[in-house]
């Protein structure tokens, strides 16, 4: 009897853990975009969550206009990437001319303003709209454990996106150039890397990652206007814990926080979990300001 109870608790725990990892992959994906842009652009993009919303809103609108869902989502993701790219090329131009702390501060306010602008527009034009992708199968049984199919697919998409990003940054020439620029802007300029172009590219990539994050979230739950700030704060939490300039750090931190989130949710209830996550951020900033996994890109 007691052994039975223990095994039930254990399988519960494994399910919670895997749920946490799957959600963590989503968080990682959300944060990598933010971290990439901060690393090279020096801009702490507070509109990052709104990018996710934009992808969701555009997908939902295109799908309801009769587009093929896959095509609509693809178009929305690319559209979001171009918005991020356009942001770099337009209102952030004057920000780059500033120096050091001032650049980061002004960038912070500009993107905060942009976040409010996008939130206002999306929730005014599309109240009650939400983006959600249905997975045909409800639950999947693996080794006697039950998983929501949607969470698995969403985790898989997140994982594939992260692997793609790692491959791009690690193996391609442009990826290497971006990493060089992330590490040392002056040095890479001397080596003939066009840092300005790399930065635009990084914004594009960041937008792309936000778009993919919208897809992952849309599959696992839903994306709707008005939740942008919440998504930004998730990305910020993960980014800060991972070391705000480290893409790898963000990936590990995302998974870690996903597990913390699932465990806290399982043991303490949902409302306390966000408070715990936020408390972790403050603790990390105070004791390891460069993040838990700082160093490396």
């Amino acid at each position, binding site marked *: 009897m007691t052994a039975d109870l223990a095994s039930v608790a254990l399988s519960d725990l494994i399910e919670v853990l895997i749920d946490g990892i799957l959600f963590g992959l989503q968080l990682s994906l959300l944060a990598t975009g933010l971290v990439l842009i901060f690393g090279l652009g020096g801009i702490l993009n507070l509109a990052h969550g709104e990018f996710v919303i934009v992808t969701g809103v555009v997908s939902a609108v295109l799908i309801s206009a009769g587009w093929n869902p896959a095509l609509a989502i693809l178009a929305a993701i690319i559209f979001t990437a171009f918005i991020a790219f356009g942001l770099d090329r337009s209102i952030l131009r004057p920000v780059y001319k500033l120096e050091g702390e001032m650049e980061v501060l002004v960038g912070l306010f500009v993107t905060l303003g*942009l976040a*409010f602008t996008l*939130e*206002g527009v999306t929730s005014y034009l599309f109240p009650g709209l939400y983006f959600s992708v249905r997975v045909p199968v409800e639950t999947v049984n693996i080794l006697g454990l039950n998983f929501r199919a949607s969470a698995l697919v969403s985790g898989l998409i997140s994982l594939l996106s992260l692997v793609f990003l790692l491959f791009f940054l690690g193996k391609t020439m442009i990826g290497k150039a971006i990493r060089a620029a992330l590490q040392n802007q002056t040095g890479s300029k001397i080596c003939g890397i066009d840092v300005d172009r790399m930065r635009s590219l990084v914004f594009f990539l960041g937008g792309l990652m936000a778009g993919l994050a919208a897809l992952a979230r849309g599959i696992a739950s839903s994306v709707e206007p008005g939740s942008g700030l919440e998504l930004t*704060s998730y990305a910020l939490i993960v980014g800060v814990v991972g070391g705000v300039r480290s893409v790898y750090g963000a990936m590990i931190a995302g998974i870690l926080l996903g597990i913390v989130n699932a465990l806290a949710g399982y043991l303490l209830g949902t409302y306390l979990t966000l408070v715990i996550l936020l408390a972790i951020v403050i603790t990390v*900033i105070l004791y390891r*300001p460069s993040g838990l996994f700082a160093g490396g890109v």
Partner: protein
Amino acid sequence: MTRLYIPKPALLFLAIFAVLPLIFTNPYQIRILTLIAVYTSLVYAANIIIGESRQLFLCMSALAGISAYTSSILSLSYGLNPWLTLPAGIVFSVAVGALLSYVSIARGLGEVFVAIVTLTFTLIFENVVLGLRWLTMGETGLVTPVLWWPFQEIVGRRAASYYTILLLAFLVSVLYANLVRSRIGIALRAIRSDKVSAEVVGIDATKYNVIAASIGSGILALTGSFYGYFNGMISPGIFSPSMDIVIILMLLLGGLRTMYGPMIGAIAIIMVLESTRGFGQLTLTFLGVMLVVLILTFREGISSIAERAFARVADSLKKDLV
């Protein structure tokens, strides 16, 4: 001991706003006037914390909210007169503000990290209020106990609350004017222009920054509580991050570290907000666009531009005379 300095335009502000309810008598207009007074006071607090001591607090809404909730909840739970619980709320907020300031200085956080920590704190505050539903009524909001406003028997509750808050805004502006001229203000100016040199001559930067944060938090706390009692209801929606944005917008528009910027900023932005009220969620867009435009083009604010223009005119007049 230096003499109390009462800036004349602050008196003018008080005089004009004291007379306005005689012209704009309907409740909606008086509400707008009250909001202007509330925000003027809040923006002076921001001017002290963000302007004078350069600590980028994005938790001003939370500091105001902590005090409002503390006072209301204590009064409701123990049946106390709200005037008795106001100080408790203020003490709580000041303690939190001072702690946030002290910890970020002690850990040597840059302005951006202070912003992240305090923004995170605001989100924690919001979630705690949402979560402690049995205490705070969560999202629906808490109906505040009834506060006795001075002279409400004579002029009525609405006018009495307005005049009390207006007087607070005036006193806060006087406090700001005197703070800038005081030992604290001079120390803060020295720290701002060169922290290392200031410390070399014996100015304790930590101490003065924490003092500035505490004074600012105190103003936020009292104003937040008054605002809650005036409003009759407090909710996480009122003390949300967008309140911080509104305050920062007013501060930037009026002019950072200026004497009259907070008044100008509060009046202008409240007018804009009220006239765009019909657009619902688009109000957020207006705020956002204004923030972007202001921060990119206009970082010194109306008040200092006006001052410079005035100085230029005065200069050319002088030249003409010579």
